[in-house]
């Protein structure tokens, strides 16, 4: 949902590139891997952008760069119209309270020696957000807002279930009243029953507080439920972006099509669906042309030689595929 007053992006990424040196084997020589390879995106205040794609496609790397935890080698990120300050600087630390990260493994994110109340209160103390005497009240409010019971305040992380731990992590992330939440696979480790509890809670919190969210997940069903817009990544690049309602109902890029088709739907048989052949590509050995061409059922000669760029293919939709109409005409500005 886009807040009516805002027509400026909360976060904007321009041509982000992040390369890692990856060693093949213990003594192999290091080869550069472009984990994120030229990504542009914007997130409006209060909006949720879903990011999907295969393991290794660069989702987490992108998420970290949006928060300035990882720095791009090329390109730039803007938060509230201003360039992202350098990691570790006082400016960055001040901004950090406005943007928070929630990731997959809540146990790793929590300090096992601190109680639930202490974990949630920690950012309030670090960022000096709430005077000491009011902290307990704020912590109690936060616990209620994520659906934790007051009697759980004195529990330790190992005494909680996975879903409850993730609630603690989220409550802590919300403590500093952030404007942006990057959620990296926040419900992937949870049972569907519990996943639904946490997804509903996140949606409620977002509606109430107008937080913008980047929601990273490999579960298309969850992403469809959370996101307003969805970006599909393949080998470090966005290959398709559209509103969450149309992208799953009518995917355009062959990779998105395969992805949507691979989701097992209860009661629907596997036959008749497109099962993508071949292995996920090795990022250290990026295929020429369209990186998807070795697995693409529709690939032609041009796909093997020339890189398709992300272009507007319909109203509010972009895709990077040579075969999509509109791809050979420049985007009308």
């Amino acid at each position: 949902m886009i807040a009516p007053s805002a027509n400026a992006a909360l976060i904007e990424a321009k041509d982000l590139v992040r390369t890692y040196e990856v060693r093949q084997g213990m003594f192999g020589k290091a080869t550069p891997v472009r984990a994120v390879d030229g990504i542009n995106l914007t997130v409006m205040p209060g909006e949720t952008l879903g990011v999907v794609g295969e393991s290794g496609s660069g989702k987490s790397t992108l998420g970290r760069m949006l928060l300035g935890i990882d720095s791009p080698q090329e390109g730039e990120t803007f938060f509230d119209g201003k360039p992202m300050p350098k990691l570790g600087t006082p400016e960055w630390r001040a901004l950090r309270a406005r943007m928070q990260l929630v990731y997959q493994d809540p146990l790793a994110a929590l300090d096992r020696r601190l109680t639930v109340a202490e974990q949630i209160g920690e950012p309030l103390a670090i960022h000096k957000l709430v005077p000491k005497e009011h902290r307990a009240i704020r912590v109690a409010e936060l616990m209620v807002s994520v659906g934790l019971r007051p009697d759980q305040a004195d529990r330790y992380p190992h005494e909680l279930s996975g879903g409850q731990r993730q609630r603690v992590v989220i409550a802590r992330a919300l403590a500093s009243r952030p404007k942006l939440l990057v959620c990296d696979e926040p419900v992937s480790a949870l049972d569907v029953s519990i996943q639904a509890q946490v997804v509903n809670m996140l949606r409620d919190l977002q509606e109430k507080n107008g937080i913008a969210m980047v929601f990273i997940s490999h579960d298309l069903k969850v992403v469809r439920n959370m996101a307003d817009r969805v970006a599909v990544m393949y080998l470090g690049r966005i290959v398709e972006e559209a509103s969450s309602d149309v992208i799953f109902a009518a995917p355009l890029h062959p990779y998105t099509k395969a992805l949507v088709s691979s989701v097992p739907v209860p009661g629907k048989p596997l036959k008749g669906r497109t099962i993508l052949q071949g292995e996920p590509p090795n990022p250290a050995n990026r295929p020429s042309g369209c990186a998807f061409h070795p697995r693409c059922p529709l690939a032609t000669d041009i796909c093997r030689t020339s890189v398709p760029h992300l272009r507007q293919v319909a109203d509010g939709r972009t895709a990077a595929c040579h075969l999509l109409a509109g791809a050979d005409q420049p985007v009308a500005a």
Partner: protein
Amino acid sequence: MISDNLVELHGLTVAFDGVKVLHGIDLTVRRGEAIGLVGESGCGKSVTWLAALGLLPGKATVAGSVRVDGQEILGGPRTVLESVRGKRIAMIFQDPSSSLNPVICIGRQITEALVIHRALTGKAAKAEALRLMDMVGIPDARRRFDLFPHEFSGGQCQRLMIAMALAGEPDLLVADEPTTALDATIQAQILDLLIELRKETGMATIFISHDLGAVSQVCERACVMYAGRIVEQGTIAALFDNPRHPYTRGLFDAIPRLDGPRERLIPIPGTVPHPRDLPEGCAFSPRCSHAAADCRSGRPNLSAMDDGRLLSCFHPVGHPAGLMQAAESRIQEAVS
């Protein structure tokens, strides 16, 4: 005379350090059929088959009966169990890292399984190993025979584990969450492989999964487990179109949809109880929207319904048997 029943579990119970986690599982696997096992984490899906195959650590107390072709294997001599495990019944484990040895090349690992289970040696073993690698869809098997596990992708490692499981030409393959760690597109490939292999070899399959969608594609029948018991069992059509246990219904309702309007999700409130403090009566009662006073005092038995399913609930949801036919023909129409 060979009976239709391949494996029969009767009253299988498991306790760890005196805490019961499995409370009497009865399950019959017929030759060639595929059965799904679903339920939230900790409900006893893995423990059921680890116990049946004698693979639990020493601190586990296992009781009940496990028969393979009528022969009891639980508590019998080790030789009986060993003749079954890997040969008659093979298991693919939930934790993939535990199954492939990282320092032995793939070809040798598969050949060793062939030596143990089928007494193949030398050229014959190598030829059969290559055939199995082909069969599970490893491209260029001959050239990759001497590679180590880390030189294969996650999806290929899963295929190789399936190849190892097939080495003994088992009558039953137990696949414990075989696709959970894989990407969606690779997951679809592995499901397809399991379906094809079963068609080719006629082996029965137990498919353990969190994903009801995946189960519906691989299996004809499914058991829903809760807190160490089977609470509903029936054909996929019966369970999917007309779940009767409130827990089964809850599991379906919680799945977000990829089509249709975007609606608020319907979670199951609360969490699975710890085996140490199970609630009185029906173990699901604290989370159940249908629970009445009787649910909190007595425990419903798993009993047969008119439509052939097994159900353990005092106040089922959905339609009783009669209305099922109409529903089933609706499914048929939708699928064809």
